[in-house]
């Protein structure tokens, strides 16, 4: 049964404010299992300061909005990353950094590497940054792109 929206309540406007809020405070879970994580650290450090936009590193997966996947996904890390992803509350987003999680990168064809992160998490990444590793501007750009898409309402739902 569809619920009636009360008189004088502009649902669209409320939703747009809420999505602005959601896009302005993306707490990222930085689970580093590869060398790209040094560039993510550089993005968080004073030189690029990702906190300017409100994207702070979260302490536990329960408080995180974005899983920042980086590095080669070995078969041993698969249960851990699946568990971390399951522990994050909705709405949650996945950002893929570097060649490794999407294709195996330099490690492609190795016997213990999962070449595509979508095979283990079953989600589409919100943004993908090529590079080995990408520079901090690229990582910042990915976060800003995710933020803009949440603001427009073209990505993610309540």
């Amino acid at each position, binding site marked *: 049964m569809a619920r009636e929206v009360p008189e004088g309540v502009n649902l669209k406007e409320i939703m747009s404010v809420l999505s602005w809020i959601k896009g302005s405070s993306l707490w990222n879970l930085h689970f580093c299992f590869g060398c790209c994580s040094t560039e993510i650290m550089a993005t968080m450090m004073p030189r*690029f300061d990702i906190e300017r936009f409100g994207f702070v590193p979260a302490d536990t997966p329960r408080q995180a909005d974005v899983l920042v996947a980086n590095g080669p996904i070995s078969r041993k890390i698969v249960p851990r990353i699946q568990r971390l992803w399951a522990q994050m509350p909705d709405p949650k987003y996945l950002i893929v950094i570097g*060649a490794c999680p*999407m*294709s195996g990168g330099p490690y492609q064809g190795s016997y213990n590497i999962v070449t595509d992160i979508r095979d283990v998490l079953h989600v589409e990444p919100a943004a993908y*940054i*090529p590079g080995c590793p990408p520079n901090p*501007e690229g990582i910042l*750009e990915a976060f800003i792109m995710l933020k803009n898409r949440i603001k427009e309402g*073209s990505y993610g739902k309540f």
Partner: protein
Amino acid sequence: MGLIKPLLYTLRELFKRPITVKYPYEKRDISPRVRNIHTLDRDTCQHCGICARMCPNNVLKMVDGYPTADYRYCSFCGICLDACPTGSIQMIHTQEHNIVRAYQKDLYMELLSPDGTIYNPDAPHSEDNETGGVL
């Protein structure tokens, strides 16, 4: 004394100007050796395929005689540049070419023209318009 020193240091830092580069609004100077994205001079390319064979990550594939890149794999190492006998494959080092893209079926794209523009915008595998793209 050992306790006072860090306190004075942080107090001094507190009143200094931040060193942050406000990235989307101002850009830092990048080194000329930064390799950012490939360009291909289609007039001089000899269709020899050496670049595709030398690439350590199997990024380049020869499509219609020209190398095409799958940027999911590329590590931007620049070996293809060294391998090319005519120097027709090059890399731009400007800030504007950080590529960030939302995921598509595959990230195949034709290499850019030497002036940094998309060579063939109508090609089926270079589309990505609303979901991201070359920034």
